[in-house]
């Protein structure tokens, strides 16, 4: 990890020195334990601020859309997939972009850590050979990193960036597709699933951090913000409306969502935001054989219509 951080700094410094880019977007040390924070570096001498570790959780593709400068971006696997998906939607100009790819073994889920700590306050943490040492007032506890990875990282198959101008460090091992979590949820009864969603959505405060953290949610005017017509109720007190918000968002990102988990990580209320999106990602893959952001060549699922497209999501075939 420390080694990767150094490689990230060197690569950024070089890009800025050679004036290949005006700006490098990466991560720097955050203000809390287990937090890194997005960082915008414009001078070669500031490249030393950059870091790389298992808390670089934000999806940096989110910052590339409106940039007019030439940008270098430190991209882990899911960032790279989002970038590819956004290039295909004409949101990012590849000519103005330099991708420094970093193979990613997964990011730590702070919510899992909170559960382990059960009210004890985390004051420091340390990462060592696949272990994470959690430290606080009067306690020190080691947990295995693989046990506290974010859900999307545990099942991620694209830790190695699918697109990059240079790749730092060593590739991580490839993984098999695993949608057993979706299958397990589908196996529940309708009543169980409805109860689960009602419980989750009752916690929603409509802060829209999930939407704003999602690289694919970039509409100038989101349907939830429309007032004429008003598509859904604006009150957070209705878990029904909260669910409609998430369900519509899932449909709007269907075939586009790269399952980066950024929405889930952003939610301050610990809501399982990813569940619906992942189900649709699985369906799009199974039914149409399409996966978002895997390469520059495949057409996005929503851009292709064939007369013999399966309709199983709509009617019995």
């Amino acid at each position, binding site marked *: 990890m420390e080694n990767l951080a150094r490689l990230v700094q060197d690569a950024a410094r070089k890009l800025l020195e050679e004036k290949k880019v005006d700006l490098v977007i990466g991560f720097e040390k*955050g203000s809390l334990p287990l937090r890194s*924070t997005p960082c*915008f570096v414009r001078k070669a001498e500031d490249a030393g601020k950059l870091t790389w570790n298992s808390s670089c959780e934000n999806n940096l593709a989110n910052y590339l859309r409106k940039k007019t400068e030439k940008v270098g971006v430190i991209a882990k696997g899911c960032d790279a997939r989002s970038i590819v998906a956004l290039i295909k939607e004409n949101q990012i100009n590849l000519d103005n972009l330099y991708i420094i790819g970093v193979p990613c073994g997964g990011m730590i889920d702070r919510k899992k850590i909170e559960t382990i700590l059960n009210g004890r306050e985390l004051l420091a943490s340390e990462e060592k050979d696949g272990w994470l040492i959690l430290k606080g007032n009067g306690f020190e506890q080691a947990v295995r990193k693989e046990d506290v990875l974010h859900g999307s990282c545990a099942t991620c198959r694209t830790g190695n960036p699918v697109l990059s101008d240079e790749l730092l460090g060593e590739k991580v091992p490839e993984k098999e597709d695993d949608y057993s979590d979706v299958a397990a949820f589908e196996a529940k009864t309708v009543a169980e699933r409805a109860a689960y969603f009602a419980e989750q959505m009752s916690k929603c405060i*409509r802060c829209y*951090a999930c939407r704003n953290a999602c690289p694919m949610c970039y509409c100038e005017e989101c349907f939830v913000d429309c007032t004429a017509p008003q598509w859904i109720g604006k009150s*957070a*007190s209705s878990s029904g409306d909260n669910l409609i918000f998430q369900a519509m968002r899932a449909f709007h990102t269907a075939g586009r969502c790269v399952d980066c988990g950024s929405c889930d990580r952003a939610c301050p209320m*610990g809501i399982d935001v990813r569940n619906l999106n992942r189900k649709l990602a699985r369906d799009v893959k199974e039914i149409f054989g399409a996966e978002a952001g895997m390469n520059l060549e495949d057409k996005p699922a929503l851009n292709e219509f064939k007369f013999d497209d399966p309709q199983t999501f709509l009617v019995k075939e």
Partner: protein
Amino acid sequence: MLISKNDLPVLLDRILGEYEVYAPVKEHGKVEFKKISSGTQVCLQYSNSQKPPKGILFPQSEKMFCYETVQDGVRVDEICDCSKKVIWGIRPCDAKSFTILDDAFKNEQYRDPYYYKRRENTVIVGFGCNRPGATCFCTSVNSGPFDTAGSDVFLTELEDKYYVEGITEKGKEFIARYQLPDGSPDTSRIKESAVVASKVNLDGLKEKLDVNFYDEIWDSLWEKCIGCAACTYLCPTCHCFDIVEEAEGGKGCRVRNWDACMFPLFTLHGSGHNPRPSGKERVRQRIMHKFKYFQDKFQQTACVGCGRCIKNCPVNLDIRILLDAIQQRESGEGC
């Protein structure tokens, strides 16, 4: 006065006979202020609640009135929450936040009947912090872990009991009714050991903000902000709202919902013009409102140092670091 920890549930049950009681309850690993139905639900072993208790007096969604078309016109039903409430065991930062909401909702130009009715009928029981959290910076904003501002009654945790002090007349009357055993223990040791480690230097900040509206520092401070409402909705002092109609057919309600200056829609004009077109202006507004405009108007800072915005920002944009960066900047630069 004193109440032993073991007797607290019974006391709360007695209070429940007369009041709606809101208290910290642990659910799914998080503590929130909930309306309780029994004293045993309460969990006072907590640092602070995920959501601020402001929602008890200023709900996130609140029906203002409802209406229905009837044969000879329209019937309007006014809604008044006149119930008597107790908020039990809120932290000093959150108790103080009510003094800030008071300024916003009851001032010379405006008196908000919805907030104020609730406020008048509510007894606030503050609860000292023996172990302040790492993101708490209350001592930097004219408060502290045993500040009684905003509390009617104040609790200090001792080993096996709580020391109960009446602070306001309302609080003294309230607590007298429950005839608790007398006692005024020495709490100085507890207070001394409650150290708030995190500090923000606010000296001279207001003077800087008075003149740095056009400073280029704002060009970079906001860059990582994704413009959500985690920091404002979870802030105990933020008090902005939006009013919508929720109506179908011939009937409906006028509802007010929390709103946040971090959203583009917040200042979007009907003409399509937006005076705060990007995150830069919005982050500046949040800082200016809390540390300048509110001071100009009400002579107090609209931040109580609870640290919620720090813990919950999805991109770790830390208000302490923001304020520090403003302080570090030589005044006049780039103006």
